[in-house]
């Protein structure tokens, strides 16, 4: 097919689809996480993980799951309308930073280098931070 037909077809057709998808879905966010939904989502990918504690971040867009004192840590994280999960261990985490809004995790992951977990409550944030550093 000649480029003078192919290129305009792509330039018109694709933005049309994207605009209509946006218009019809309004890009609603994912359902906020609660302890049970976070557990369920994490266990789907890591069924052998024994969850002792779940910490939901502000707005429920992400959650940390812990298997207990000094144990393993997992993450449930919003990506668009869905969630993804990660096991956070010493090979994955590069750096953990406390910020005014919460915790920033820098991870060894080409598709998700920085994870911001909003924890506005200082006490909750410190507890999550301790768990992360101990775990």
């Amino acid at each position, binding site marked *: 097919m000649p480029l003078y037909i192919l290129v305009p077809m792509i330039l018109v057709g694709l933005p049309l*689809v994207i605009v209509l998808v946006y218009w019809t879905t309004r890009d609603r966010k994912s359902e906020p996480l609660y302890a049970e939904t976070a557990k369920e989502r994490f266990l789907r990918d890591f069924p052998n993980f024994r969850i002792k504690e779940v910490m939901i971040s502000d707005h429920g867009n992400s959650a940390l799951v812990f298997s207990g004192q000094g144990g393993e840590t997992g993450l449930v994280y919003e990506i668009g309308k869905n969630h993804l999960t990660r096991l956070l261990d010493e090979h994955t985490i590069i750096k953990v930073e406390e910020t005014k809004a919460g915790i920033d995790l820098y991870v060894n992951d080409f598709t998700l280098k920085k994870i911001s977990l909003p924890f506005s409550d200082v006490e909750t944030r410190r507890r999550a931070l301790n768990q992360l550093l101990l775990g």
Partner: protein
Amino acid sequence: MDLVIPNFPAVTQLAIPAFVGLILLELFYLRKLRNVEGFETRDTATSLLMGVGNVVSGLIFGFVAYGVLTWAYDFRLFTIGFEWYWVLICFIIDDLRYYIYHRIAHRCRWVWAEHVIHHSSQHYNLSTALRQSWTGVFTGMFVLRIPLVLIGFHPALIVFVGGINLLYQFWIHTETIGKMPRWFEYIMNTPSHHRVHHATNPRYIDANYAGTLIIWDRMFGTFVEELEEDMPKYGLVKNIGTFNPLRVAFHEWVDMFRDAAKPGLTLGQRTRYLFSPPGWRHDQEVSGSEAIKADFVRRNPQEAGKPGLPGI
């Protein structure tokens, strides 16, 4: 007598208006008639951009593959024409070639590194069909077409039937169609069969590699039926955390070479990180999809030995 080569149309390019129209139809159907949101703007945009990149990459690098096929054509055993029955036979053989390619793509990380892109959306709709790799030529899998050329099929015919095969696969990327009539489900690849292929449920991993004809999976033991009690969950075992097309396109290549370059590995282990099945690890006896399936069976022993799952 010289072979007159017909002017085959570029079917996938000609189909672009139909792709757009059908995506919009599915969007409208899901939103207005079923009141569900099967689409997400950023996900759809990424899929479409991956599709455009695939076309561009094909225009830029496709000549390499075509050049190799044209060169190999000089060594053909027979000279096969373009009569309709030869087109049909070529299509069927090429569909088997697609099955082999697709099975390799899921069982060899070198090829998975490009094919993973097609599986990287957590949605399953018609736009997912267009989420295609930019690096297909680099895996060298076009060599699987050489046997067809050596038999005597012209490279132009092989490219044409390959295009028809991809065109067929567009409509099966949808949740709007349940199951087709039983006879059709038995012979042809369908939305139901392909949903299984895109699912990460343990029983569905590494199943239903077919392009157009599902008979190959039935023949070679990789067929798994979609079950109502185990609805497909789409995406990857380890889902990606980005909609950035560049990161989507290259993430597995980066991970693969990082794994192979880890310090302290033997040459054999480095090689296995490149060519073993995805998920292979040097420090685990059983890894990848085998480990996921075995673990599922350990927790659900009543499922052992069912299609897609190992025995105890």
